[in-house]
Each structure stands twice: as structure tokens, then as C-alpha cells.
């Protein structure tokens, strides 16, 4: 293998890919970065087995030529050293060539590095992209989907399947839901599919992978191609591919957990409600369960209280925009509610209660594609 590449492009690619490489892995080859030169350009691949990132540097675009390939081939180089070397090279172009026994030379101007490479055949194979099972989604919508669901995933190892976000596609509607069994966040979105009638369910993507993905995507409304394969999911944007392994197992059925009727409904200004709960939680900073009590006191007023016996008590009254149904007294985990209110982008939210001991639903008033569900806390 032998090619010459424009340094700035190369550094950008290497840094992108390096994000997915971890030095603490049980598979030795994954500490390396795979370089592959073909007639179309140079592909860089990194992986920590949970997520994999592939970056493609095209041979040329309209204005510039980036890569000159003399001989096709591939090699795996120790990422720890290689990324540092590439960042600090002196000249505009970098030349990389592989000799026998995977000995690799990295040259730029007068600087020469001879590196011992690894056998590219040993590198894990990433799934092939099947174009017919794709759908598109704008980057900013994807980032929103991630932001509004990942926070609700569980951190506990006891039920690994709950550490992921469940994606389901039906009739061009994508439903993402996440739960830690005390609360649930659900977000729906209309999307375009290439083939009509594309649908899938029980695709559970690790929350950590999604957070990583969100970090590498920039804010724009460009489209991202999403491909779901048997054991991985692939996101394809401009020059890079992002793969994540899926979680094993069956996601619990969440659809029928959501109550359809309400005994008490309240509409509140989300910002004001959020800060009221935050204030009431000030006393329960160290308190593990973060219990907040909520009570209707007539005239469309709500009273929020929180008691920490050793410290004291916080009380606040909140005016609702609208209230209907029976009187109510309920306790819940304030922290969960704060998490949810922080990702709600609407001015007003509607909360539907179905009694002190049953779950309640929080929805924005201006659209119905996002929903949060909370279990109350028993306090007596």
C-alpha cells in the first residue's frame, strides 16, 4: 500500500476516528486504526467493539485533489502513536507506505517514522451497507431525538436491555422510547424511508453509543442515512459512518403502560414549574429519593412541598394555566421530573394524573410527538 494525502484532511479524519478507539480493550487489534487505500480514496476505521467509526477521504472533490493512491492495500497502525504523529507532522502532505511484514513508513517533509503495523486481516469486519433498508433523518432532528430520550435510560447493570433506547419504525413513523422502569421518555418523528413499508421493532441502541453519536454530529439540517442490520445500526453522514452494536434481548412492551384517561389535568408553564421544583429540591440534595409532594389547593393553585426531617421543609405555590378534574395529592421523584422538563422545548406542558398511586403523563401542549411518564412514590 502506498498513498499521499493532504495533511489537514487526514488529521481531521484521524481525529474523528480516534474518538472511537479505546486503549482499554480485551481485543488487541482494536487498539489500532485501520487505513485502507483504494482507487476512490482513503478509508480510516476505528472501533472499541461497542461503536465503530469509519471516515472516508475522497480522492478529490470539485476544487482540490486530496489523495494520490500509488498502490492499493490496507494496514492497521497503533492508534496511540499514530494519532500523535499525524497531528505534529511538519509539511502539507503525508506519504504512507507499507513494506513487507506490515512495516509502515510515515513521511512528511524531512520527518520519517517507521512503524510496526498489524495484519489488517485480523481487524473486525463491519457489516456491509444494504442500501434498500435505509431511511433518512435530518441531523438536528436526530440529535433532538437522542437528547430527549437518552437521559431516561437506566444505569443499572441488572437489566442491561434498559440501558438502551428502543427504536421502532412503522408507517414512516419512528418511535424512540427509553425507560429505567421508574420513568419513561418517548419521542415520535415522521421520517422518509427509501423503500415504502420499511418497518422494524425491538432495535435497542445503547444509550452510551447514542450520546457519542450526538457528539460527532454537527448542528445542521443535512440528512443522515440510517441502516439497521441484524446486529448493528449504522448512521451515515457526509464522510463518515458510525456503527453501534445493538443490545441483546427483548425490550419491555411500553405502549400499553401509558394511561389514556385522566382524573386530574393541569396545564403549567414549563419554565416556571421547572424552577419551582428545582427550588423545592434544594433541601433534599443529599436525600436519595428526592421526594416532592404536590397538592391541589383550589383556584387553579398547586402546592409543592418537600421535607427533609433533619434540614427543614420547602413550600411553594404554583399557579396553573388551567386545571380540571378531582382534587389530588401525589408524591414523585423530583429529579426525574426535572430531567424531563429540561428537555421539553415547549412553553407549556400538560400533566394528566390518574390518581395518587398510578403513573402520570407529562406532554407539551403544542404538539403530541413527545411524552414523559412517571411512577409516583408511595409516602405513607
Amino acid at each position, binding site marked *: 500500500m502506498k498513498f499521499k494525502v493532504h495533511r489537514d484532511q487526514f488529521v481531521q479524519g484521524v481525529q474523528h476516528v480516534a474518538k472511537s478507539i479505546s486503549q482499554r480493550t480485551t*481485543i488487541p487489534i482494536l487498539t489500532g486504526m485501520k487505513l485502507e487505500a483504494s482507487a476512490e480514496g482513503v478509508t480510516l476505521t476505528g472501533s472499541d*467493539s461497542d461503536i465503530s467509526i469509519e471516515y472516508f477521504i475522497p480522492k478529490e472533490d470539485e476544487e482540490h485533489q486530496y489523495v494520490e493512491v500509488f498502490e492499493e492495500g490496507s494496514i492497521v497502525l497503533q492508534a496511540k502513536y499514530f494519532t500523535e504523529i499525524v497531528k505534529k507532522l511538519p509539511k502539507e502532505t503525508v506519504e504512507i507506505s507499507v513494506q513487507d511484514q506490515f512495516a509502515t513508513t510515515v513521511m512528511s517533509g524531512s520527518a520519517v517514522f517507521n512503524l510496526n503495523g498489524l495484519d489488517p486481516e*485480523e481487524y473486525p469486519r463491519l457489516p456491509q451497507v444494504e442500501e434498500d433498508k435505509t431511511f433518512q433523518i435530518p441531523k438536528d432532528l436526530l440529535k433532538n431525538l437522542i437528547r430527549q430520550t437518552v437521559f431516561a435510560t437506566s444505569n443499572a*447493570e441488572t437489566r442491561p436491555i434498559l440501558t438502551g433506547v428502543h427504536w421502532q419504525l412503522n408507517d414512516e413513523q419512528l418511535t424512540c422510547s427509553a425507560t429505567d422502569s421508574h420513568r419513561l421518555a418517548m419521542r415520535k418523528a415522521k421520517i422518509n424511508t427509501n423503500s415504502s413499508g420499511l418497518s422494524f421493532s425491538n432495535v435497542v441502541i445503547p444509550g452510551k453509543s447514542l450520546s457519542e453519536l450526538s457528539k460527532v454530529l454537527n448542528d445542521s439540517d443535512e440528512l443522515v442515512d440510517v441502516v439497521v442490520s441484524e446486529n448493528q445500526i449504522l448512521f451515515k453522514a457526509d464522510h463518515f459512518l458510525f456503527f453501534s*452494536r445493538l*443490545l*441483546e434481548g427483548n425490550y419491555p412492551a411500553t405502549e400499553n403502560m401509558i394511561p389514556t384517561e385522566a382524573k386530574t389535568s393541569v396545564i403549567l408553564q414549563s419554565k416556571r414549574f421547572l424552577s419551582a421544583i428545582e427550588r423545592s429540591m434544594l433541601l433534599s440534595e443529599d436525600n436519595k429519593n428526592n421526594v416532592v409532594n404536590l397538592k391541589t389547593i383550589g383556584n387553579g393553585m398547586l402546592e409543592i412541598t418537600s421535607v427533609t426531617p433533619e434540614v427543614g421543609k420547602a413550600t411553594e405555590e404554583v399557579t396553573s394555566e388551567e386545571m380540571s378534574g378531582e382534587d389530588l395529592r401525589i408524591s414523585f421523584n423530583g429529579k426525574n421530573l426535572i430531567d424531563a422538563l429540561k428537555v421539553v422545548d415547549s412553553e407549556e406542558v400538560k400533566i394528566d394524573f390518574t390518581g395518587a398511586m398510578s403513573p402520570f403523563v407529562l406532554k407539551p401542549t403544542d404538539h403530541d410527538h413527545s411524552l414523559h411518564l412517571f411512577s409516583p412514590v408511595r409516602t405513607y
Partner: protein
Amino acid sequence: MTWAELAEKQATVVQMLKNSILKERLAHAYLFEGKQGTKTDLMAFQLAKAFLCQKRGDDAEPCHTCEHCRRIDSGNHPDLHLIQAEGASIKVDQIRHLLKEFSYQGLESTRKVYIVEEADTMTNSAANSLLKFLEEPGGESLAILQTTKRHAILPTIQSRVQVLSFAPLPPESVIETLLEKGYSEVQARIASQIAADVEEAESLCSSDWIAQARSKVIQLVHEISKRPQRALLTVHEHWLPFFSERSSLQLGMDMLMLWYRDLLRVQIGQENQVVYTDCMDDLKNQALSQSQPTIRHKLTAIFDAKRRLDANSSPQLVMDQLLLKLQEG
């Protein structure tokens, strides 16, 4: 390694595994149990290959040349996880990592394999956290646990895996091989007893370690019966400095045990099976002066001492205590 090569020594196990593969009735978890040198590890890798190889032959033989087989050999297969003891034991964190890994689907296919080497060294908490997973494996996964000490595996684990016992090698065949290679009979006999396979026995014989160790054992048992007051000194001056490593001390204990077993053999008239053939006179003398229960008692004491060594007791204290017990009778 091929099935045929492995079948030379472990025909039953190979046959069982091959049949299960061909009939697609592999269990979800196996425990390979066999003495040192019965090649449980090679069998585990062979089974992993047969499970993951995509060009497996009709005789259940993996191709050994495809990318899956090659990467299993080099330790780079992404869907094969190997758990080895870190230091003296397998820690709960290693099992946690494994559980996390197995809550994900495979990287390349939906099949995953994990091999736990020396499963007996799992700490209790590690073994317990593995339990639930052994019981409810997710997807198409295969667990292979490997051990030399089956009794040290929690019964709750044993009941959740299919145990395959590897046949120990018959010592006679080892002796023959060693004699053919020109080692003396006394050396060959003792090496065949304490070593697990021909290679190990040969490496023991080729250094003069075994000859020296043998003379230390003979010296010690001599002192115990003839000059009990000197025995303690012998242990401290000769025995402990020579068997300074824990593993070599274990071998020394094994050789000591062989001596007492020889005494029993002499008593019941199986003199052709004796290991210390050159000390027949000594053996006969000692056999006359001790009853069978006493000797059995002593053998138990040596077993106990060996177990204590495994449990990280101080070698010196273990030897002192053992010596007192051996002198009692």
C-alpha cells in the same frame, strides 16, 4: 489442532462434541474438567472455532484458514472472549465486563463464545454474578468453563453446565515413552506420576531437578522414621530452600504422597506398581512398622497441607504442621 489430533487422547469428549455440533445440539455451557495436561484449553479453542467458523466441514472440522479461525488463533476475534485469572483469581469486575459484553449483540455475527480458563479461581462473588447469566444466556452464545479442580467449582455452577470429564493419561504410556527416550526408570516412574503429560514429564526429566527433588523426599522420609528430632532441621535446611516456589513445593508434596502410597502398595503386595523402586528395602522396613490406618492418616495430612498451600498459607508453617502429623504415627 484438529478433532482427529485431540481424539488421540480424548476420544469420548471429541466424539460427544462432534456429534452435538453436527446435530446442532450444543449445550449453552460446558465445563471441561481434566487434570493438568489433558489439553482442556486446546479443546475449548477447537470448539470455539467449530462454533464460529463459517466454512465448517461436514465432519464438524473447522477450516482453520478462514478469517474467523485465524483470528481465534491470534486472539483477535471480536466475538470470542477469554477470561483468565488476573493474579491469583478471576475477579468480579472481569465477570461484570463479560456480562456487559454479552448484553450486546455480536460484533460480526449473532454468535458469541466465552472461555473461562481456570474457572476454579473465580472468587465467590465472581462465580455468583456469572450464575444468572449461565442460566439465561441471551441469543446464540456458548460458554466454556475450564478447570483442573472440579470440586472447587460452586455446585450452583456445576448444575447449570454440562460437565465433560477429560480422561487422565495412563502413566504406563508415559513411562514407556520416557524409557524409549533413554531416561532412567526411577526418573521415568516418578515423572510419569507427577507430570500431566509426556511433554511435561520429559521436561522434568531433562533437567536434573527431578533427581534432586527425589533425593530430598527420600532424605526427609528417612529422617522422619529414623531420626525424628532431625527432621524439622532437614525441612528448614534442605527442603524449604529447594522447594522455594509454591508450585515446586506442590510437586514436592506430590512426591511425598507417592512415597506413602508406595508403603500401602508394599503392604497389600502390589510391589510391581511401586514408584520408588530403588528404595525397596526402606519401603519394606517402614511398611512393617506402620499400620494401614496410620498411613492413610498421613496421606490425609499431606492432602490437607496441599490444600492449605493453595489457600495461600505460609509454606513454612504448613510444612512444620505436616511434619508433626507425619511423626505422630
